[in-house]
C-alpha cells in the first residue's frame, strides 16, 4: 500500500520508565517528528538520549516497564498508541520491519536461515512453496549469490555482515512500508558497514521502503540520509536536511557533536606518536604463524589465521593496525599478548604489555569495584606496594585517565561506557607498561566518549612515552594518532610504513578498499 505524504507522524510523545518501586523517569519528552514516504531519516544523538526508546516506541517492542504517558504515533493514518497489543504485534514484520545493532546472536542458533525467516510467513499463513520462493528471492536481493545454499546454513556459519543481511531480509520480507534500523552497522567493520548501508539505500530506492536510521555515526548519516534529526534528553533539538544540519548547525550541541565526530587532531589537541631517533625496539614479531584448534584430535591441521607476520615497534611510537574484519587483527593481538601460542615464529617484548579491549562492559567484572580491578591488575603485574603507596598510586592513575578518587568505589554498572573504558585504561596504567595494546577501544563508545578516550590514549603516548599499538577500523583515528600503520589482509601484512604515506598513496587493494569505505566511518 502506498501512502502519500508522511508515513509516520510522532506527535508530542512522552514516555517514562518505571520499575514499579521507584518514581517513573521521563525518557521521551514531547517528542515530535515525521518520516516522509520513501525517505531515509537519520536520528543521531549521544547514548542515553532516547534514540533506541524512540525505535522501540514506534515499533511497539517496549518492555513492560515503559509507559506512553501522552502523545500519538500515527502510522499510515492510524494512531498506534490506541491499538491493542495484538494489532501492534501483527504490524511488525508485515508493515514495520526492525533491525537492531548486534547481529551476532540475533538469529536462533538452532535453526537454519530459512527456518529463521519462514516464521514470518507461516504466521501469516502464506503458501509454503510461495513463502520459500519469497525467502530465496529476498536473500538474493540482500546480496547472497547462492540463496539456496544460504537458506540451508546455520547462523554460526555466517559472518556478522552476512547475519545482518539475513536480518534485513527478514525485516523486508513482507515488503513493509517502514524499516526501523537501530544502529545496524555499529558492530560491523567499516567495509561491511558500507555494503549494508548501500543495501538499505537500494531497498529504499527500489522497494520504496521509508527508513528511520538511528546511529551515533555522523558520517554515515551525513552520506546516507535525506534528512537528519539530532536528539538530546528525549527530545529533538535540531532537524533539517542533512546538508544544512551538517553545514550550519542551529544548536550548540549539534555543533559540538559535529566537532567531536570530525576527530580533528587540532581541536582535540593530539599529535601522531613518533619514536625518537634511534629509539630501541620494544616489541617485535618475526614470521609469526598462528591459528586455532577446536579439537585435540585435529592437531595436525590447524588452519592458520595469520601467517608470516613480522614487524618492529620502537619505544614511544604509536602504531595503527588496520584491516577489514576477519583479517587476523585480533588473532595477532592475542598472539602478542601470549594468549595464543604461535605455531611458528617468535615475539620479542621488552617490558610489560598491557591491553585494552573493545567492550568495556564485559571486560570488567560486574561484581567488583574499580579499586578491586586496579588491585588485581597490580597483583597480576607482580607489583607490591604498601596500602598508602597503593592509594596514592591509584589516585594518580585515575587522575591521569580523567577519573577521580570517588570512582574507586564505583561498580562497572554505575559508570558510563566512556568511564568504564577509562577505568580499563587505568588498569593498564597501574602496571606501568612499556607498551599498551588497544583492540578497537573506541568502537563501542558514542561520539563524545570516543573523542575523550582518543585524547586520553594519545596523551598517555606523548606525555608518558608509552608505546601504543592501536587496532581500529577507523582510519581517521589512526591517522590522527599514529605515525606508523600496518595494514593486514587475509592474515598477512600487505602494507606498512608512515601513516601519511600509506593512507595517501596506498599500494595494496586492501588499503584502497578501507579508504573507500571511509565515508561511513564513525
Amino acid at each position, binding site marked *: 500500500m502506498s501512502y502519500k505524504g508522511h508515513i509516520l507522524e510522532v506527535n508530542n510523545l512522552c514516555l517514562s520508565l518505571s520499575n514499579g518501586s521507584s518514581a517513573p523517569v521521563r525518557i521521551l519528552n514531547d517528542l515530535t517528528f515525521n518520516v516522509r514516504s520513501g525517505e531515509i531519516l537519520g536520528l543521531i544523538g549521544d547514548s542515553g538520549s532516547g534514540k533506541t526508546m524512540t525505535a522501540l516506541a514506534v515499533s511497539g517492542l517496549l518492555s513492560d516497564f515503559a509507559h506512553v504517558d501522552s502523545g500519538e504515533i500515527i502510522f499510515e493514518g492510524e494512531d498506534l498508541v490506541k491499538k491493542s497489543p495484538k494489532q501492534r*504485534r501483527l504490524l*511488525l514484520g508485515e508493515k514495520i520491519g526492525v533491525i537492531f545493532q548486534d547481529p551476532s546472536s540475533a538469529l*536462533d*542458533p538452532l535453526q537454519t536461515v530459512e527456518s529463521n525467516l519462514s516464521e514470518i510467513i507461516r504466521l*501469516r499463513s502464506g503458501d509454503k512453496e510461495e513463502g520459500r520462493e519469497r525467502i530465496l528471492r529476498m536473500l538474493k536481493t540482500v546480496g547472497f549469490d547462492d540463496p539456496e545454499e544460504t537458506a540451508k546454513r546455520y547462523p554460526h556459519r555466517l559472518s556478522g555482515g552476512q547475519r545482518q543481511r539475513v536480518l534485513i531480509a*527478514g525485516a523486508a520480507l513482507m515488503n513493509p512500508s517502514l524499516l526501523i534500523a537501530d544502529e545496524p552497522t555499529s558492530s560491523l567493520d567499516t567495509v561491511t558497514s558500507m555494503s549494508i548501508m548501500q543495501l538499505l539505500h537500494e531497498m529504499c530506492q527500489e522497494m520504496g521502503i521509508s527508513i528511520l536510521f538511528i546511529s551515533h555515526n555522523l558520517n554515515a548519516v551525513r552520506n546516507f540520509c535525506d534528512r537528519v534529526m539530532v536528539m538530546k534528553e528525549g527530545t529533538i533539538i535540531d532537524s533539517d536536511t542533512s546538508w544544512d544540519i551538517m553545514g550550519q548547525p542551529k544548536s550548540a550541541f549539534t555543533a559540538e557533536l559535529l566537532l567531536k565526530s570530525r576527530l580533528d587532531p587540532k581541536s582535540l589537541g593530539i599529535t601522531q606518536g613518533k619514536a625518537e631517533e634511534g629509539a630501541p625496539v620494544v616489541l617485535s614479531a618475526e614470521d609469526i604463524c598462528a591459528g586455532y584448534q577446536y579439537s585435540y584430535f585435529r592437531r595436525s591441521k590447524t588452519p592458520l589465521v595469520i601467517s608470516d607476520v613480522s614487524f618492529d615497534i620502537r619505544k614511544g611510537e604509536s602504531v595503527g593496525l588496520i584491516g577489514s574484519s576477519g583479517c587476523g587483527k585480533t588473532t595477532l593481538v592475542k598472539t602478542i599478548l601470549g594468549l595464543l601460542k604461535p605455531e611458528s615464529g617468535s615475539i620479542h617484548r621488552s617490558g610489560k604489555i598491557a591491553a585494552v579491549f573493545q567492550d568495556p562492559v564485559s571486560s570488567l567484572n560486574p561484581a567488583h569495584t574499580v579499586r578491586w580491578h586496579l588491585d588485581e591488575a597490580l597483583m597480576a603485574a607482580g607489583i607490591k606496594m604498601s596500602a598508602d603507596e597503593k592509594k596514592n598510586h591509584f589516585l594518580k592513575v585515575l587522575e591521569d585517565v580523567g577519573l577521580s578518587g570517588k570512582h574507586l568505589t564505583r561498580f562497572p554498572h554505575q559508570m558510563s561506557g566512556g568511564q568504564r573504558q577509562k577505568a580499563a585504561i587505568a588498569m593498564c596504567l597501574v602496571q606501568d607498561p612499556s607498551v599498551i595494546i588497544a583492540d578497537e577501544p573506541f568502537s563501542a563508545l558514542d561520539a563524545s566518549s570516543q573523542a575523550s578516550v582518543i585524547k586520553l590514549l594519545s596523551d598517555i603516548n606523548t606525555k608518558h612515552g608509552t608505546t601504543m599499538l592501536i587496532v581500529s577500523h577507523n582510519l581517521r583515528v589512526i591517522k590522527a594518532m599514529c605515525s606508523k600503520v600496518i595494514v593486514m589482509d587475509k592474515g598477512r601484512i600487505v602494507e606498512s610504513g608512515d601513516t601519511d604515506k600509506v593512507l595517501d598513496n596506498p599500494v595494496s587493494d586492501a588499503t584502497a578498499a578501507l579508504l573507500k569505505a571511509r565515508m561511513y566511518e564513525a
Partner: protein
Amino acid sequence: MGSAVRSALIRLCEFLLTALLVSFLTFSAFAIIPGDTARVMLGPEASEEQVEALREELGLNVPLAERYVDWLGNAFRGDFGKSLSFGSPVGDLIASRLPVTLGMSLIALVFVVAVSFPMAAICSRNPGSIKDKSLSTAGHILFAIPPFALSMVLILFFSKVLHIFTAGRYTAPSDNFGAYVVSLLLPSLCIALPKIAMTFKFLRASMIEFSQGDFVRTAKSHGLSDLSILIKHIIPNSAVSSITVISLVLSDIMGGSLIVEQVFNLPGLGRLLLAAISRRDFPLLSGIVFYLAMMTVILYFLADVISAVIDPRIRDGRAS
C-alpha cells in the same frame, strides 16, 4: 554431514576410552583398599588357612594387571563373577534388580521433564510475578524435604486418604505390565520431586536468560506471539542447555534409591548395594559400582550425541 559423522566417531572413541579408564579405576580401587580383602571378608575369627583358601579362590594371589585383564575379558562377556553372599552370578543379580530401578528411572524422568519444563516456562514469562514466586518457593520446599519424609507423606496421602495405592506391593513386568507400571508410579514420584525442583530451578534461569536474548527480540520484530516464541525458540534453546543437567539427574536416579526402595519395599538396586556392603560381598559390590559407572558414562555419551543432533554448533565442533 561428514562433520557430523566424524564428530560422532570422535565421541565414540572418547566414550570407549573413558569406559576403559573407569573400569580400571573401579577394579583397582577394590584391589588397593588397605588390608587383606579375604581377611576383611572372613573376619578376625577365621584361621590363616581359611583366609589363604579364600585368597586362592578369589584369585587374589595373581598380579593385579593380570587379574584386571582377566576380569575385563569376563566382564566383556557379561561375567562379573559369583556373589559371595547370594551364591549366584553377579550379572544375574544386577539384571534381576534392573526392572525396578530402570522402570523407576524412566518414569521419574518423564515426571521431571513433563513438570519442570511447563513450570519453568510459566515462571519465565513473568519473572518476579506472584505466579513465579509461588512456583519457585514450591520448588525450594520440594528440594528441602528429605526423601523418606516425602515418601511417607505420599504413601499416607495416596493409600490412606485416597485409597488408590497399596504400599509395599510390587508386580514384576512379566506378570502384569500395567500393574508393574502402577506399582512404580508413586515411588518414581518420590524420586522425581526433588529432581523436578532442581531441573526447574536451572530451566527457569535459562529460559529467563533466553527470553531476554537477541534472537527472541528478532522473533518479536517478526510479529510472533509470546507463546510461539516460547515454543519455537526459548524451549528448544533451553532444552539444549539443560541436557547436561538432565543427564546428571538421570545418572543419579539410575543408581537406585535406597530409601525409597526401603520405604516402598521394592527389590531395586539400592537395596542390593546395601546388602553387598553390609555382607562384604566384594565381587557383587565391584559389579554394582562398575554398572553405576558405566551407566553414567553411557548417559553422558548419549547427552553429547543428543546435544550434537539438536545443536549445529556442537556438530561443527565449536563450543557454543
